[in-house]
């Protein structure tokens, strides 16, 4: 097959770097609002009916949303195999915590209302809360650690070794800050969703929690940026790197350098759009919640998520996963992708299927448009959550 040479290898790598961003943002926007809804569950809903309203607001859509995570896993495996291998094995116990919590969530949604009883339903409410909080927190912590560099190195056979990096080492101050930012961001987004899909007391409480979460998001995001500027070194490639060369990270050299994470913004000021959208989106979410808007807050929080995640990507480019103990092992856009042919095939697949997915997903959201109706939940005991 020679068709794939129509697009240069380095161009494909940049496209797949962008698609990596699209996947992570897609996951955080789509699955993010139901993770945020789970975090808010104990706070915005007190009675059993209120809790069922909250759960049913995401009931018909969480399964589809979660596929963003599964697709994220599969697409990273296909397009960035070395990233898939290093990050998931390096963050082994953190990944386990995320999976454990995420397993509780589907089961919690489906099984909670199958039986009466305070103990049964109370236990599942906890499971759902943990299922929302732990993934949000740990994923944020992971990003906070990636920005500082992860202690791994590759040997000559490209086998991966870790020097430390247990679950507790990840919980350093900057990692925790990023974790809390992630929780605040998704809580804001979940509140936006609840304001859209519910009314009465639940919506009112969601509005207040969401407004606070939006301000905390801005605060932590700015704090994270200042801290990164003042106290955390970035990484820099110090050799010539063939951008269309073979995917072997050991073909380059790199070093830790103060201020390197801000070099991209100095060279390309338009990249400041990332952090600006992160802040403006969250401030807009706050203002729109304050103004009792129902539809727009969730859109504003989505913009904020887009800005915040883009900021991480733009800050590190071309690095994807820097190594703190052996900078030349760091994974970058130019040396850790799949082969030219695989990137091309996957791009064609994405080009065909993503529009189809977007089309039917929009149709489903349109069918389900409107507030959750308490009467409907009480009527349908076999299928509603």
């Amino acid at each position, binding site marked *: 097959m020679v068709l794939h040479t129509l697009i240069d290898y380095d161009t494909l790598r940049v496209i797949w770097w962008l698609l990596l961003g699209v996947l992570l943002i897609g996951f955080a926007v789509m699955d993010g609002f139901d993770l945020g809804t789970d975090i808010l569950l104990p706070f915005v809903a007190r009675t059993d009916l209120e809790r069922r309203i909250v759960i049913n607001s995401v009931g018909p859509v969480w399964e*589809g949303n979660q596929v963003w995570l599964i697709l994220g*896993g599969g697409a990273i495996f*296909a397009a960035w195999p070395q990233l898939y291998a290093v990050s998931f094995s390096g963050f082994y116990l953190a990944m*386990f915590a995320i999976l454990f919590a995420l397993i509780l969530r589907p089961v919690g949604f489906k099984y909670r209302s199958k039986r009466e009883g305070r103990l049964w339903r109370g236990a599942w409410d906890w499971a759902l809360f943990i299922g929302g909080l732990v993934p949000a927190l740990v994923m944020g912590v992971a990003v906070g650690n990636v920005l500082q560099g992860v202690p791994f190195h590759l040997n000559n056979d490209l086998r991966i070794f870790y020097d430390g990096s247990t679950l507790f080492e990840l919980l350093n101050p900057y990692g925790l800050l990023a974790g809390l930012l992630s929780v605040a961001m998704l809580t804001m987004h979940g509140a936006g969703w609840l304001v859209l899909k519910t009314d009465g007391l639940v919506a009112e409480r969601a509005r207040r929690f969401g407004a606070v979460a939006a301000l905390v998001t801005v605060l932590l995001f700015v704090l994270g940026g200042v801290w990164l500027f003042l106290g955390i070194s970035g990484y820099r490639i110090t050799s010539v790197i063939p951008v269309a060369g*073979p995917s072997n990270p050991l073909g380059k050299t790199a070093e830790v350098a103060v201020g390197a994470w801000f070099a991209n913004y100095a060279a390309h000021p338009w990249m400041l759009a990332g952090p600006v959208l992160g802040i403006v989106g969250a401030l807009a979410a706050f203002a729109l919640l304050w103004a009792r808007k129902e539809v727009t807050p969730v859109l504003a929080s989505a913009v904020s998520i887009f800005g915040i995640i883009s900021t991480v990507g733009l800050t590190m480019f071309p690095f994807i996963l820097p190594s703190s103990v052996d900078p030349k092992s760091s994974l970058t856009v130019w040396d850790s992708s799949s082969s030219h*042919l*695989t990137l091309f095939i996957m791009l064609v697949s*994405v080009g065909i299927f993503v529009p189809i997915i977007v089309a039917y997903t929009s149709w489903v959201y349109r069918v389900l448009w409107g507030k959750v109706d308490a009467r409907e939940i009480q009527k349908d005991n076999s299928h509603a959550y």
Partner: protein
Amino acid sequence: MELDVVDLSRLQFAMTALYHFLFVPLTLGLSVLLAIMETVYVMTGRRVWRQMTKFWGVLFGINFVLGVATGLVMEFQFGMNWSYYSHYVGDIFGAPLALEGLMAFFLEATFVGLFFFGWDKLSKVGHLIATWAVAAGSNFSALWILVANGWMQNPVGSAFNPQTMRMEVTDFFAVVTNPVAQAKFVHTVSAGYVTASIFVLGVSAWYLLKGRHIEIAKRSMTVAASFGLAASLSVVVLGDESGYLTTEHQQMKLAAIEAMWETEPAPAAFTVFGFPSEQDRETHFAVRIPWALGLIATRSLDTVVPGIEQLVNHAEERIKSGIIAFDALQKIRAAGSTAAIPPAVKDAFEDNGTDLGYALLLKRYVDDPRTATPEQIKAAAWDTVPSVPTLFWAFRIMVGLGFFFIVLTAVFFFLSARRTLDRYRPLLWLAVLAIPLPWIAAEMGWVVAEIGRQPWIIEGVLPTAAAVSSLGAATVLTTIVGFAALYTVLIIIEMTLMIRAIAKGPEPDEDPEANLIPAHLVAAE
């Protein structure tokens, strides 16, 4: 016995995969049965079929959600526990996984929400489309994951790249149309249909025994018996063996299943029963049917099915050739640039490169395969034999059950045609007791396919032992205990809810006239 990180990683994968596969077959089959039942409702307008779809849909949902939850672990643990594998073959293996998400999971998961929540929000046909979309999505997912698995068994369309130290795709079309993957897809999906059919048959038989929900039970049985008969014929006739002659290790798998230590003149006999001994390298007390194996495996009378010893001898040759490839690879990498590679080295790698994986089998005994002694090479060649007794028995249990399902579904198909489904109580009891059997057969199928693949993770390319992450044994043990505890609690809850939902039975049909449907929903209908 001291378990190292390889054993523990295998244990965790086996545990999570076998557990995940408790929910997958029922999802595959029941989604199609739901779509069939709802199609009858939409075509005839008889509301009892709607009631049936809703009732079996409740059971589908309880099962489906655990399949979704445990499927997450499957998607991520290649990277967690098998990071060298992920690096080494991600270029090929990752693509079907991503395609599974794009083509199958989104379809299935987006529409399953509408299946449950859309009864009053969609038109009849609209809802039927959602149900078929769920069925199509779950069956597509089986296709892509078996393309991935088929490649592990028969790694076509790819080549080793010394510059990136990994396998890279050369012909994606060959990966997708891999004959092993195609055989596996038909076999696995049919097994799912059988599982769901026996499940529906058994639960309905229980209602008939109790004299409850007669109308729904009889109709469900008719659907399940006819669908189940077709599926169980397909699962046996189009069995996985069709792919067993395509590659060397698939032949080894077949020889191990048959405990056929030495090559026999064609057509080979089939050992129905016996006690294979790995120590003596023979099968004690063997009861054999002449010609049968040759016919099943090769569908001819004159094709020879090779025995274990012959295949081991051949593996030894490939290990020797692999050592030459390994040596050439080191020289190629030492050369630095492509231009600096001596032509002789290049030729050596081109001639022996496909056996590189065989040299890695020696890593168990020596760090540098080039220093291996003839005894070590012999030992490594014998390592290519998977556990013969395990395969021998797992295969016989699976096939025995497969034939039983044909008989069972045929009997109920016959009774249904004679309209005497509720006449023979012992037969109804047999159907109830048969409910767990398809799961046993399905799990045995996994054992045959994947234990049979050992010692390879990718046949001929990468040994399982070389594929693990550099994790501590204690770390992996922690997650094994964690998953085991969570999974145990969840299966107990799932079974309890399943039994309660079955005991409760179908909801009475709401009369559409008397029902107080809110105005805005009526408008949508």
